[in-house]
């Protein structure tokens, strides 16, 4: 249980470990994109953690990085095909961001730092915890950026029509992502390190 909670707050991959920020900045323009990305990351992270934990004693230490990458990219591709075939609506929304999970360093970092040293059950919990921590952070960013930048949440107008028409365009552009993540990190630092 400790491992599970750990990933959500104390070692939140985005706001505390600051890993894999690239996709976080890129997909947090709307809540829907952010949530879809989060789900895909939870799937890949948990699966790769399980497999890597299972084969950890068999993998020679010189080869661990290439092997981890192969395992991760296999799951990402499986995820990509499956989504495309059976969840075309979700896939349509996420598009290019799904294959980009391969280069998300949270997943490699957890493989290296956690799954290759812990039991399968602990690795599952860690994968879920970190994955959910990632999802919460991205969705929070998505909500803030979408609300301020487009005046909507999940495509529904909030605050009012006049705000929607004159929203803070900057927030859905890349600089908005940097601003929001900076404020979230500052808040997290104050709250967690107290």
């Amino acid at each position, binding site marked *: 249980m400790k491992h599970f909670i750990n990933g959500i707050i104390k070692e939140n991959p985005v706001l505390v470990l600051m890993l894999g920020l690239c996709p976080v900045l890129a997909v947090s323009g709307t809540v829907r994109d952010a949530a879809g990305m989060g789900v895909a990351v939870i799937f890949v992270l948990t699966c790769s953690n399980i497999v890597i934990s299972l084969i950890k004693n068999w993998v020679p230490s010189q*080869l661990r990085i290439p092997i981890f990458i192969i395992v991760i990219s296999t799951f990402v591709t499986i995820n990509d095909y*499956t989504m495309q075939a059976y969840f075309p609506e979700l896939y349509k929304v996420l*598009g290019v961001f799904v294959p980009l999970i391969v280069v998300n360093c949270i997943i490699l970092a957890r493989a290296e730092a956690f799954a290759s040293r812990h039991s399968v059950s602990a690795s599952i919990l860690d994968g879920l915890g970190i994955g959910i921590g990632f999802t919460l952070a991205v969705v929070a960013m998505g909500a803030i950026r979408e609300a301020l930048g487009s005046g909507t949440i999940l495509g529904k107008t909030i605050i009012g029509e006049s705000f929607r028409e004159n929203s803070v*365009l900057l927030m859905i552009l890349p600089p908005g992502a940097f601003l929001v993540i900076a404020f979230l990190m500052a808040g997290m630092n104050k709250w967690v390190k107290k």
Partner: protein
Amino acid sequence: MKNAFKLAIKLLIICVISAGALALVYNKTQPVIEEMKRKKLKSNLRSVFKNAVRFETIKEDTLWHAFDESDSLIGIAFKAYPRGYGGPIETLVGVKLDGKITGIIIASPSEGLKETPGLGLKVREKWFTDQFVEKKKEDLLLKKDGGTLDAITAATISSRAVVRGVADGLERYLK
């Protein structure tokens, strides 16, 4: 030496397992994906050209002829790829023989559209694409350029690209 050989074998094993798993998933999902693409194209053609009941492919994935109930030619549908802000904007256009547009549909990001989310990506929105309906080639100009079509706020390049792409396509295919 012996050690290096062992490492290579281990890496090979992992790669083989991974390739096998991928091949399995690919075989299972690919027919579904292909089928979906075909259906998607069909429904897209239908929605840009509501009066047509049958389409005949003239050029694979580029040009179609549209026929009505009595099987007479009533128009064409074509794909245009104008250059937008991030790359080509795949646009499917239906047009009657008299040169009036019946509808346009713009491909989604997963189909390769690279416009900026929240800005250029809005070219896919209904209010924007609906503006083209019943327009002729001469009418295809943004208000900014002296025409009648509304551009998307802060995404003039993408808006203009679509307008030009549709106009160029009409020029090329409608003779």
